């Protein structure tokens, strides 16, 4: 068997719909853990509301948030996968079909930046990036619908031979600037080094990492822990109305570069929309989250 257009179309549509209705399990666990540790009553109650909202969306098969965001997909093609599909147009067809059929219907969030007109389609929509997985016999697709609430606060800056103190201070300042705005507690993704474009891609991909996963590089793992404690010490708390839990995780990746070092920071709000699945060459689909 071969992976076909229809398989990609169906899966990209399903991934989006799942992302709108289900808060990932690791995220619910992290919210529940935070609720146990919070010293603020308002924060505990707010975390409780979050868990209730997540549960009711699942039980009622409805959306957690009204802002369904814009479609963002990461496609990773196994180099040993057997496929014959126009992946880009299949994903676009999947989103078009989703818009026509999904219940409840989506609000119009796709915005033309030249006119601020809103619709369900636009230039370069859905936003898709492609990568390869060596030796894999499947295509993996991640869907991460991105909305204004947290999308707005991502930031990047370029430094020249920065020290770790400079890098971490910048990341802390980005967290201060986002403050109460991005529906905390958030997942923070950081990309250090590489080039302008590559650093932001790393930051975005790090927001998609499992909460609680430990970076295999001990120096980076320490940085993640340090930043996690630092950002939570700011005190913004759930929904930015005060508390000990502003981030659920800080995930860092880095790449070698020249002496100019970009540092990029991205956020996922507490509902942490992300879904991931693989289509194997024999046609079966494995939903990972």
């Amino acid at each position, binding site marked *: 068997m071969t992976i076909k257009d229809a398989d990609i179309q169906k899966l990209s549509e399903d991934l989006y719909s799942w992302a709108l209705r289900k808060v990932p399990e690791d995220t619910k666990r992290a919210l529940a853990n935070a609720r146990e540790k919070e010293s603020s009553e*308002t924060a505990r*109650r*707010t975390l*409780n*509301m*979050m868990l*209730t*909202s*997540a549960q*009711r*969306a699942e039980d*009622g098969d*409805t*959306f*957690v*948030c*009204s*802002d369904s965001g814009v479609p963002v997909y990461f496609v990773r093609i196994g180099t040993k996968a057997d496929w014959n599909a126009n992946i880009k147009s299949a994903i676009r067809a999947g989103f078009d079909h989703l818009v026509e059929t999904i219940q*409840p*219907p989506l*609000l*119009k969030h796709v915005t033309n930046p030249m006119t601020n007109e*809103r619709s369900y389609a636009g230039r370069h929509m859905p936003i898709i990036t492609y990568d390869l997985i060596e030796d894999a016999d499947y295509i993996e697709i991640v869907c991460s619908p991105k909305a*204004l*609430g947290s999308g*707005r606060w991502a930031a990047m800056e370029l430094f020249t031979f920065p020290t*770790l*103190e400079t890098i*971490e*201070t910048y990341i*802390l*300042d980005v967290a*201060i600037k986002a*403050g*109460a*705005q991005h*529906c905390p507690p958030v997942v923070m993704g950081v990309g250090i080094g590489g080039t302008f474009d590559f650093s932001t891609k790393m930051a975005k991909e790090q927001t998609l990492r499992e909460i609680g996963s430990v970076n295999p590089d001990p120096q980076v793992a*320490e940085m993640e822990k*340090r*930043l996690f*404690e*630092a950002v939570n*010490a*700011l*005190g*913004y*708390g759930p*929904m*930015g*109305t*005060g508390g000990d839990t502003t981030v659920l995780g800080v995930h860092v990746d880095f790449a070698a570069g020249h002496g100019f070092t970009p540092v990029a920071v991205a956020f996922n*709000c*507490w*509902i942490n929309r992300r879904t991931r699945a693989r289509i194997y060459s024999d046609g079966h689909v494995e939903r990972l989250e």
Partner: protein
Amino acid sequence: MDTFPNIQLPMSRETAESLKLGDMITLTGPIKATAGMPTHQRILDFIDEGKQIPIDLVEAAFFHLGSYSRDAEGGMEVLYMNPTTSTRFNHMMPKIIRHFRLRCVGGKGGLNTACAEALKEVGGVYLSFLGGGAPLHSKAIQKIEQVAWTDLVSHYRLVAMDVAELGPLTVAIDAHGNSLYDNLDRSAQERRDQIIEKMNQTRAR
């Protein structure tokens, strides 16, 4: 879920002035909602031109809520609603708050000091909604009274509805000019250098 005091709308100035930062309440009664920047602009234009807006906002509870509305038998229905970021409207809200003497405003993310000042003048509060709370907020809708400016996309429309036990909502700016957002920003700024120092010490080990 925990239980919270329920306040009947319209809210009196006395009740608004009795609310304290961090209080969590629910609301029952009429509210008005929109999530649109063009809607706010239109409200401002109507104020400037001395025109009556189609949904009265005087001393109202006016919230930054995006909703999916559509035609249904016997009027409009709202399928779901959820807050949007209020700070986007910072530059527009002081005039709207003062003109209509808004008693409650709300959404998520808060409003700035100039808005808190306007709220203090008119005896109004800012209430923080749970973002990602569509299942909770939507179930509070009892009746859609009116959907105005249907030439706009759904979440930009101005909607008047009756709600029951909407919330819980957190009092984040009180009627006396105090703001959780300002307080938390200030304390984060005050803690910043100390946090950086602690990071440096941890790194050095």
